């Protein structure tokens, strides 16, 4: 009669419960058809401790947080929750209001479905917790009583047999309990040791130099590509020639401002103790930057001159050679540029923030990030200096260049907006942008019979852009997502199974105990993906990375756990600390023994190859 489920309640809820729900729906339908024959018999009741899986989180202040994970189709009575000390004194329980059942057979009772929580204040010695519930429509359980071991001044092992015995001495037993409860499941790789090593060996100078080097390396990643057009747009926006000195000055200011922005981020992060990446991932910040890009683009198209107020420019230009408005613009652009690189620089930023958090040295952290920004700016400086010199004299072509940058800026805005908008909408925006670009280039202009190569090439380019725009427009209409494969949505369903069926399935966890429970269930490698609703980069990852066949194959035998920080509370912060992560998106790869593979951690928006490589590292 007894049915022992091999799955813990959390997993059951995540995977089995929907199945059961679907099954019972089918059974209900069948039962209705069969006029209620043998079909509507309830599934045999579970063991009450399984149906109401109790988890206890000892809090630092000596109180306890009790959490019941209630199986689907079962409920717990609020009124029948109680707690007593070892010698029988009733303990007050803080509970949340439940759902009021007003069914005639229930009467008016408050019950909990899915989950119940209760808090017991600090108390000495062991605690007996009693709870009672029913299988909905089936059976009501007698009260279940669990004895929770003492916190801090824990009962000696021998006293465990007699809960009434006074707790004699603090015992190490509790520590092991706490460890089991909060964490020892996983071992994080000591990767951030690079920073520690740097500061141990050479002090702050080496740290700064190291970060400068990091920045320089970063400059050769695609992350910095968006910066080139911005800077070039800035230089092209000048009316007149741009000499090497002027170019160097402008790009120098730009780079300094960018580095200063990074430095400020570091400083603020250290001061506030808050995770800046979290802020920078907010749809709000991304939205604002996208709007700035649209504004910049419109300015490039000549709709208006974007200048700081005369008074500001006068003051700001006093620093430079006396030419108006541009240095301030460079500084402002540089400052905001630091923000748009968000996802790409998450990795070093995360490292720096971890470092700051660990040392508590705000200035060193700020300096390190400043150095990172400077390193990243070196190629920009060079391009600004020599690229500007190589630019031909000003003329009508300048308008063309500005317009091109306008298009690029709009593209940046769409790229950023892609983090916030649904895929087809983004595709439609790309289509509109390319269509406009194609028309403006002259794709639809009439060619004179005697035209030379240049106009014909222009027309070709314009037509090509229009053609791609048409594809993208079609793709958007067909619900496509990926600008690189706009027509993927048009493929027959047989070739591309629906996204619902082949989506990578993550077990969601929101706290350390939930994570431990999920990991306990994993009998092989596991990957923990730190994500959140409000993390815009995560949306991109969800859309681009997880559906990728290579990624799916590499992670096929891996337990996938999503550490969901959508509701960022203390449990979420504890989860982040536990994983040694600063925030989403982060991927932690654990081998079968629960150890993080060295160098496998991915922060930010990694490529397919990186994910595959990290997944291999834990095989």
């Amino acid at each position: 009669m007894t049915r022992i489920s091999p799955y813990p309640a959390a997993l059951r809820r995540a995977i089995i419960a929907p199945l059961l729900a679907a099954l019972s729906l089918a059974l209900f339908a069948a039962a209705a058809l069969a006029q209620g024959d043998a079909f509507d018999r309830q599934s045999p009741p579970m063991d009450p401790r399984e149906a109401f899986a109790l988890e206890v989180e000892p809090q630092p202040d000596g109180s306890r947080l009790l959490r019941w994970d209630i199986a689907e189709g079962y409920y717990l009575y609020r009124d029948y929750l109680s707690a007593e000390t070892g010698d029988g004194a009733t303990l007050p329980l803080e509970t949340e209001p439940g759902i009021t059942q007003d069914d005639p057979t229930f009467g008016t009772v408050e019950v909990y479905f899915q989950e119940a929580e209760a808090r017991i204040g600090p108390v000495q010695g062991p605690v007996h917790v009693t709870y009672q519930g029913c299988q909905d429509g089936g059976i009501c359980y007698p009260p279940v009583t669990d004895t929770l071991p003492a916190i801090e001044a824990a009962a000696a092992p021998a006293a465990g047999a007699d809960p009434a015995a006074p707790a004699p001495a603090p015992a190490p037993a509790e520590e092991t309990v706490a460890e089991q409860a909060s964490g020892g499941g996983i071992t994080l790789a000591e990767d951030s040791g690079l920073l520690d090593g740097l500061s141990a060996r050479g002090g702050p100078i080496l740290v700064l130099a190291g970060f400068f080097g990091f920045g320089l390396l970063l400059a050769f990643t695609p992350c910095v590509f968006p910066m080139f057009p911005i800077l070039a747009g800035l230089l092209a926006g000048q009316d007149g020639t741009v000499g090497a000195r002027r170019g160097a000055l402008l790009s120098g200011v730009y780079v300094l401002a960018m580095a200063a922005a990074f430095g400020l981020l570091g400083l603020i992060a250290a001061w506030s103790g808050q995770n800046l990446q979290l802020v920078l991932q907010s749809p709000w910040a991304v939205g604002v930057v996208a709007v700035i890009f649209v504004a910049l683009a419109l300015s490039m198209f000549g709709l208006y001159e974007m200048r700081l107020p005369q008074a500001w420019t006068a003051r700001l230009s006093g620093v430079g050679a006396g030419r108006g408005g541009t240095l301030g613009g460079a500084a402002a652009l540089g400052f905001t540029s630091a923000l748009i690189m968000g996802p790409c620089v998450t990795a070093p930023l995360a490292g720096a923030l971890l470092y700051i958090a660990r040392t508590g040295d705000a200035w060193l952290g700020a300096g390190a990030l400043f150095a990172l920004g400077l390193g990243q700016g070196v190629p920009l400086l060079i391009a600004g200096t020599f690229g500007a010199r190589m630019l031909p004299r000003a003329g009508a072509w300048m308008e063309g260049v500005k317009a091109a940058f306008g298009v690029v800026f709009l593209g940046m805005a769409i790229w950023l907006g892609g983090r916030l908008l649904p895929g087809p909408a983004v595709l439609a925006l790309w289509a509109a942008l390319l269509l406009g670009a194609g028309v403006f280039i002259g794709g639809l202009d009439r060619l004179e019979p005697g035209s030379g190569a240049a106009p014909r090439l222009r027309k070709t380019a314009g037509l090509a852009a229009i053609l791609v725009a048409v594809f993208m427009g079609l793709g958007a209409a067909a619900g496509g997502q990926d600008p690189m494969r706009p027509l993927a949505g048009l493929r027959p369903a047989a070739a591309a199974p629906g996204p619902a069926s082949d989506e990578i399935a993550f077990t969601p966890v929101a706290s350390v105990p939930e994570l431990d429970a999920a990991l306990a269930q994993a009998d092989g490698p596991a990957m923990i993906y730190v994500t959140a609703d409000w993390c815009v980069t995560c949306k991109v990852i969800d859309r681009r990375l997880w559906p990728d066949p290579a990624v799916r194959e590499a992670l096929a035998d891996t337990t996938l756990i999503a550490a969901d920080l959508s509701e960022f509370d203390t449990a979420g912060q504890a989860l982040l600390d536990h994983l040694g992560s600063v925030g989403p998106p982060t991927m932690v790869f654990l081998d079968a023994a629960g150890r993080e593979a060295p160098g496998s951690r991915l922060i930010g928006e990694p490529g397919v190859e990186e994910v595959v490589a990290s997944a291999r590292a834990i095989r």
Partner: protein
Amino acid sequence: MTKLTRRTALTGGLLALGGTALWTATRPSAQAQDGAMHPTIEEVMFDPANPVLGNPEGDVTIVEFFDYQCPYCKSNHPVLKEVVEADGNVRLVMKDWPIFGAPSVRAAQLALGAASLDSYLTANDALMATEGRLDETLIEETLTEAGLDVAALDAAYRENRSTWDGLLTRNSAQAAAFHLRGTPAFIIGTAIYPGAMDKAGLENAVATARG
């Protein structure tokens, strides 16, 4: 009051559990402490103290472990009675297993007191027809409305207190020994059926018991 009684019930359950464990370990010497023994089906179905409803001479016994506050016991009760009446040859043994605390125990005590006064059926019917949770006042009102004298019931219960308390203790012990999950739980023939049962389920179970 609530706490005390609940703990008493709990102790009974734990004792019974202890008895079961002991029985499993040392089966030949089936005797466990405090007289708790692994019960046989006979002992469950033919406990001399327990009132019998339906046809006392019936060839099949339906045993229901129930609680007067258990929502599914009560919603299931009309169906159960209908099946028992329609069959005409079924003994119905309602075994009190108060799991919902003091009001359940109180209801059981008064109903068992009614058994001494030959009005168990009236008391049981009235209490099973209540809606939702009970308290002392509601129990007394219900029984009074059914034409019973609560003071007399209480006196009758107290008069045979050792019998009734012994019955309640045995019921709990039996529930534990048979690993019943909760209420309602039916034992029909030699099979245990956890949870509420519909008409067809009951009829099939009776048919199965007849072989």
